């Protein structure tokens, strides 16, 4: 370990990374200034025993065995079930709402209106009223007995058919001229190779395995809520605010989210379903559970907006990008406030440092449910378009796609990743292997980059983590933030075990209860980088207290005491961990660590870099695409729990393949209703479609905090769809510019080639 933090102006640490395979190390010394009282920084030379190791998920067995209780598993004495009446029209006004018949039905305990008469209805599935009763059958009967009348207005659920939508030609290319851009067009005119094309993606629904929903119980003035959420404290504040009229204060609300079955960006709020649940429980004077069904999940609870983007650009004779023009459109439902509908499309900026560039984005409305942030919002869509565009440009210029990236990628770390990845994947050989002209099955390989930026933050006021060491030698660490499946519990346990020099099995981690210290909402890949330094600090403080007890016992100086390999003591006198803990009194050591701000100065890398490679096989007879294998090379700062980090990357690749090949919301134009709001017709990648997946994680010391993890939830989701699409282009010799790449589109591409 490095020396403890000295005076504020100065700890020298080693930042950077060790080269993968034969790649060079890129390590450098850097002076950082840890906050007073913070744990000293772990750097590239710190020997770590637990952190970065191949540990199992600490709650894996509980999840696999069903012992872990999710919101949908919560059962309470006298629990009522509830459901929501949904609007059957896409646009109009609620003109009548009669609830009394439903209230009078047997087994019905409460009925509440969720929309006032006179309010607008914005999409099929807009919430109208909610019912709680003894069981879901009776609740559904009561929903059917509610009379709701609407003034129906003409609707449009196709965002590309609205009046502000760009004109598309028969091939799906934007048919409108580019607005003038003198400098950019000057560069284009000088380019040796130019290209322009339009790319499109469809709406992907979040549809987490655990649906949205809550269980609520009032006890007097207090409200206890189990919520499937990505933001326990956000839900708590939102409910307190919404129920202020009932005299509710924030402190009287407890939110539980001990286990959450996925969120992907769709679960930041209590939602209309969470609020309805609390209102029903209040009215019924009984606990109520309200979970959405799968159709509601697909149609009302979040989606990644559709995207349309047009690119044009040019290469000079050396294959350098000198012009880059992007205009994009997002289809994000009814709540489009121009420029802020959540449909933004991001494209990589590291290829175009030397190019004249321009970007313009417009969100377009439709009478559909609003988009929500979804795993790397805007990125998979934009990277798909941009990376496939680059491959088409490279193809025109006769340059290998990898070579084009190497010539233009301004990020050194990804340059290393490209080279390492290409070697490991066997890029050159796979790229050179020809397909017989008459072969039914054609293979192809593709690649794409990834970028994200998330080094965590302190929070305002700072996030905290509680650490207790008990007399029996057990340790508990607690964060009120939620583990949405990404592995926060394991992260907390491993870091505490590392700091305390003990077996992680001695540490119990608890998450998702608002009685515990506050933490961030899990969005933007913030949770691990924000909370790792906080749990480290908590364990660091607890260790100091334990050192005090041991010093007194041994008659030594507390500064000489350290904790390692399950022992505590000085260099000459050591106690086993269990013996040392017996020195603790009846009260446990009980400290709260905090997340200090990131160190000043520039981190080694503010970007989280990655790249992915894919090999596909296309059946030219049926148009079906299969991904055969994929490789991800991914930086994630300090790797805390290797297996779980790899699992994040593998999951992102699968989700990306699914987005590239299968997922799309299909709307019926006439009724405005989703046609495939189930997992039979809304197709997702299944187990028989899973390719060989390879993942290489890179630990990168960015030198930004004591425990320098970086966000990993989103970065690997950025590259995967683009890698699949570029591989399909290689296989066919013809791009498919519209995701998902379904058989009809593949056959159309083949017909164009022929």
């Amino acid at each position: 370990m490095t020396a403890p933090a000295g005076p504020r102006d100065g700890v020298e640490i080693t930042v950077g990374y060790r080269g993968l395979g034969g790649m060079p190390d890129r390590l450098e010394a850097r002076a950082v200034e840890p906050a007073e009282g913070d744990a000293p920084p772990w750097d590239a030379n710190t020997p770590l025993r637990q952190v970065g190791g191949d540990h199992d998920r600490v709650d894996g067995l509980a999840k696999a065995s069903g012992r872990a209780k999710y919101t949908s598993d919560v059962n309470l004495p006298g629990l009522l079930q509830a459901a929501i009446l949904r609007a059957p029209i896409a646009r109009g006004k609620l003109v009548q709402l009669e609830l009394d018949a439903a209230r009078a039905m047997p087994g019905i305990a409460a009925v509440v209106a969720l929309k006032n008469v006179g309010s607008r209805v914005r999409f099929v599935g807009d919430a109208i009223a909610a019912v709680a009763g003894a069981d879901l059958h009776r609740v559904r009967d009561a929903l059917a007995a509610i009379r709701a009348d609407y003034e129906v207005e003409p609707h449009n659920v196709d965002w590309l058919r609205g009046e502000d939508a760009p004109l598309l030609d028969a091939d799906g290319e934007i048919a409108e001229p580019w607005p003038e851009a003198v400098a950019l067009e000057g560069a284009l005119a000088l380019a040796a190779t130019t290209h322009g094309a339009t790319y499109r993606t469809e709406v992907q629904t979040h549809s987490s395995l655990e649906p949205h929903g809550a269980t609520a119980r009032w006890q007097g003035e207090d409200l206890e809520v189990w919520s499937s959420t990505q933001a326990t404290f956000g839900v708590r504040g939102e409910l307190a605010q919404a129920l202020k009229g009932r005299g509710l204060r924030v402190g009287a609300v407890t939110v539980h989210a001990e286990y959450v079955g996925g969120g992907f960006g769709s679960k930041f709020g209590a939602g209309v379903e969470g609020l309805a649940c609390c209102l029903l429980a209040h009215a019924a004077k009984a606990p109520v559970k309200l979970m959405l069904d799968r159709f509601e999940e697909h149609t009302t609870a979040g989606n990644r907006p559709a995207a349309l983007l047009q690119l044009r650009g040019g290469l000079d004779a050396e294959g350098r990008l000198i012009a880059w023009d992007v205009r994009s459109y997002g289809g994000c439902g009814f709540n489009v406030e121009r420029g802020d509908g959540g449909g933004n499309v991001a494209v990589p900026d590291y290829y175009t440092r030397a190019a004249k560039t321009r970007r313009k984005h417009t969100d377009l409305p439709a009478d559909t449910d609003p988009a929500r942030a979804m795993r790397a919002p805007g990125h998979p869509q934009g990277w798909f378009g941009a990376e496939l565009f680059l491959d088409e440009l490279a193809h025109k210029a006769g340059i290998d796609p990898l070579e084009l990236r190497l010539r233009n990628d301004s990020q050194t770390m990804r340059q290393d990743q490209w080279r390492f990845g290409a070697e490991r994947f066997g890029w050159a050989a796979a790229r050179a292997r020809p397909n017989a002209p008459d072969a039914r099955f054609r293979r192809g390989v593709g690649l794409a980059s990834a970028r994200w930026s998330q080094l965590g933050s302190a929070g305002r006021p700072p996030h905290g983590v509680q650490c207790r060491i008990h007399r029996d030698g057990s340790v508990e660490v607690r964060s009120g933030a939620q583990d949405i499946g990404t592995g926060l519990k394991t992260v907390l346990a491993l870091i505490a075990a590392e700091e305390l020099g003990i077996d992680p099995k001695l540490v119990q981690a608890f998450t998702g209860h608002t009685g515990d210290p506050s933490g961030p909402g899990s969005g933007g890949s913030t949770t691990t980088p924000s909370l790792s330094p906080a749990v480290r600090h908590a364990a660091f403080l607890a260790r100091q207290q334990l050192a005090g007890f041991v010093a007194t016992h041994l008659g030594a100086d507390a500064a000489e005491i350290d904790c390692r390999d399950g022992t505590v003591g000085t260099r000459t006198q050591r106690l086993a961990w269990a013996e040392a803990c017996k020195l603790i009194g009846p009260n446990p050591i009980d400290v709260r660590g905090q997340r200090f701000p990131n160190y000043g100065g520039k981190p080694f890398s503010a970007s989280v870099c990655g790249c992915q490679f894919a090999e596909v096989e296309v059946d030219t007879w049926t148009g079906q695409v299969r991904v055969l294998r994929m490789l991800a090379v991914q930086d994630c700062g300090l790797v805390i729990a290797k297996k779980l980090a790899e699992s994040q990357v593998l999951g992102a690749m699968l989700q990306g393949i699914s987005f590239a090949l299968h997922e799309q919301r299909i709307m019926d134009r006439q009724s405005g209703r989703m046609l495939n709001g189930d997992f039979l017709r809304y197709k997702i990648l299944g187990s028989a479609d899973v390719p060989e997946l390879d993942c290489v994680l890179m630990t990168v010391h960015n030198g930004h905090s004591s425990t320098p993890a970086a966000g990993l939830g989103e970065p690997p989701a950025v590259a995967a769809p683009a890698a699949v699409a570029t591989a399909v282009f290689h296989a066919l010799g013809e791009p498919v510019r519209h995701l998902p790449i379904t058989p009809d589109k593949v056959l159309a591409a083949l017909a164009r080639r022929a």
Partner: protein
Amino acid sequence: MQPFTYVLPENLSQADAAARQPDTVLKGGGIDLVDRMKERLQTPARVVSLLPLRAELGGIAVEADGGVRLGALATLAELERHPALATPALAGLREAAASTASPQLRNRATVAGNLLQFTRCWYVRSEAFRCVHGGRGPTCLAVTGDNRYHAVMGYSDCVRVHPSNLAPPLLALDAEYTTVLEGKTRRRKLAELFPSDPRGQAPEHTLAAGEIVTALHVPPQPASARTSYAESREKQSFDWATTACAVRVVLDGGVIEAATVVLGAVAPVPLPRPAARLMLGQKPSAALFQKVADAAFTGALPLSQNGYKVTVGKAIVREALERATR
């Protein structure tokens, strides 16, 4: 919810009597029916489960004449691995069973249930839509709506497709089915199970109310008979076929003596295609199979979004023929 009576008959005659009560449905594995009941698409007063009759209505056996009897309640998983089906002549049946749904469902799904399942049309299967199917509305909504998975031929006023994987190979094998109704047993050609004019108002099958399918019979096959089954889909895991084809050929000295081609998932009923005759007296070849594939889709009239199914369907016919003659 509408309460229903759940009947567990002890023998076939009890089932026969129960099935003839008004507003009654029969349940095998329940894969399709229970879904539809949960979605309130079907709200019968009585549900007669046939599962207690597994001893009578289940199982797979070689019959005295060398044919194979498939009990109506035999599961798709049994079809996949039963030794009686382990012949090249019945390969298509095995392959069709194995490509259905997921292993979990195949352990539960029955032969009769697969043949008699309800259409998967997303307009028909939603309480929100009122289409011509079953007389719920005036027109077919798929014709003007989203029809990417719908029929390309053989339709009239309803463009649903028949989703059964087992129907094409069983038809190709000239199978028969036995039913019981009012104590009377009847055995007919499988083709008679499907309506000849599959209109929206007409049921998916020709069974009388209360008629119980008890078994399927695959006639004995000559040693040189071969069948195969191929289907197109969008993914490898659990997915419905976008097109399917079962073929049966009998080769004599390298020459095709008999041939049958049956298409699935392209029309409201499984469709035997006369194009198979083009192969009689011919030697297998890629060119011949292409010709048959093209002819099999003669008269196809794809809708606004499903033209790809004709291209894909032809490829699937070729694939099935190549595998059967390999």
